């Protein structure tokens, strides 16, 4: 197993005429949670969406697990082993919780159902709402479903975009705990505005600004670096 799961090199992405990513390079080491930070509009979501093939890169390269996926379609990328939890509207409201799981399960084999059982232990609420439409879940439960659903597959990498958005502090702590359990077997790239959550889960970090990587390092150092936090994240 290579010790780098995902490599972006000079990735540029246009949305319509707008030059959103202007050459993003980053490396995701295996077996940890890497955090993408940056102010609103910095290009964090676009970076994840570009990796997923939703807003394909027009220049640069994306290598996942040794294979070039720069031009691959979203469903091919998912099948190659990347799970994606998007920023908004991640769960399908009109489907039941069960159907959301079934939709996510790439191969309906024993191993997948075993992983599904394991997911219930992490997110017991979901079992309670198994037959309910996902639309009736609370915001936090929806977020949990969006994450849990990807875990029925044996993904090598999870891309998670702002899971703490709109959650009560106690739920954020629970979620951080869950992510810490997940990262023991799956590498995570986490976009997170909640600095508390980011430092609870993340090891390495990258800071994006205006579609470029402007800084990188390890979370424990960043926590001390008030000047850097002030400059790029707007927090004291």
């Amino acid at each position, binding site marked *: 197993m290579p010790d780098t799961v995902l490599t972006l090199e000079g990735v540029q992405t246009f949305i319509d005429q707008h030059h959103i990513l202007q050459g993003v390079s980053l490396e995701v080491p295996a077996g940890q949670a890497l955090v993408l930070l940056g102010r609103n509009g910095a290009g964090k979501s676009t970076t994840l969406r570009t990796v*997923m093939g*939703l807003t394909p890169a027009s220049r640069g390269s994306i290598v996942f697990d040794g294979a070039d996926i720069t031009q691959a*379609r*979203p*469903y091919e*990328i*998912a*099948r190659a082993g990347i799970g*994606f939890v*998007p920023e908004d*509207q*991640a769960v*399908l*409201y*009109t*489907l039941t919780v069960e*159907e959301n799981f*079934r*939709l*996510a399960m*790439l191969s*309906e084999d024993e191993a997948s159902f075993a992983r599904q059982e394991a997911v219930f232990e992490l997110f017991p609420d979901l079992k309670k709402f198994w037959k309910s439409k996902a639309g009736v879940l609370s915001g936090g439960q929806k977020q949990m479903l969006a994450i849990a*659903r*990807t875990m029925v*597959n044996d993904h090598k990498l999870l891309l998670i975009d702002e899971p703490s958005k709109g959650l009560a502090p106690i739920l954020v702590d629970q979620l951080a705990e869950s992510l810490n359990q997940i990262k023991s077997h799956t590498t995570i790239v986490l976009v997170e505005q909640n600095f508390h959550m980011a430092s609870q889960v993340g090891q390495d970090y990258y800071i994006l600004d205006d579609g470029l990587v402007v800084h990188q390092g390890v979370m424990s150092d960043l926590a001390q670096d008030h000047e850097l936090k002030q400059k790029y994240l707007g927090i004291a």
Partner: protein
Amino acid sequence: MSNVAQSAALELNGSQNLKKWGGWILGVGIWFLPLLWTDLTTYLVLTVAGITMGMLLFLTASGFTIILGLMDVINLAHGAFFAWGAYTGFTALTLLNKYGWVETGSLGQSVGSILICLVLALAIGWVLGVILEWLLIRRTYGSHLKQILITMGAALVMAEIITIFWGPNDEVVQTPAAFTGSIDVFDVIVEKFRLLAILVGGAVFIAMNWVLHKTKLGIIVRGGVENGEVVQTLGHNIRRIFTYVFAAGAALAAMGGTMWSIYTQEIRPDMGEENLIFALIVVVIGGMGSVTGCFLASLMVGLAFNYVAFSAPTLALGVNIMIMAVILLLRPSGLMGRD
């Protein structure tokens, strides 16, 4: 301050409820309104006719609504599949009639004729659907304007090809002998073919619901109607699935065309256009992408058309457009559409 906000919220809630219930009361009430000016027997005959028409409309409109919901594709050539299905059935019946299966044959031969028509129509619709999707539709993703222009052109071409093969004139379609005539249920005259049409339409509705709710393909389609992007990132090739859905929708429309032509006993090269207008009304009333909404709306349109056509034929289409307008006022996203 918060009191004002609260009462405003309550009021909003109330008016939403009113709209919701208003829609349902209208939807159900319309079934009984005609009793004010028709006697019970006539009413029941018209009701059967309306349900028949609704079931046949459903065959076309259901494909249209799923195609629209899943890939956001407006396919104005959908009615052309209907016409092609009708002409396919007509040709099959004409041939079978030469062997004495249609106008004179046994019950088995009548049933066989209908089955052959339906299977051929489904096949023709499927093949035409795949061709159209490959040739044109996939080049128009994301642009409604392109879709409207290109599919309108395709509809004209498809109607033109019909006149080349079959000529520009109306033709009479034979109903297989066993399905002509009617039965008498407590003084209510029910044409046999109507019963068959209701049976076929109902079976398609049940089968469609089964596929949509009980199979993985169905879950993918329903998920895709709601949010195609998410479904793709879960590992599903929505485009390939859409090709199948498009072809299935075309096949159902063609089947609807066969049934319709045998029901009305006539075909015309431009019969697809009229059907498309009804399908559009049904889709708007039912809510885009909703099969159950489409089913209810088809019945509503079929019933309203027949009730009104009986006493004021010239108003029949107008009344459906009116229903559409009222429903849109009450529920802008249609009966079962998402807001």
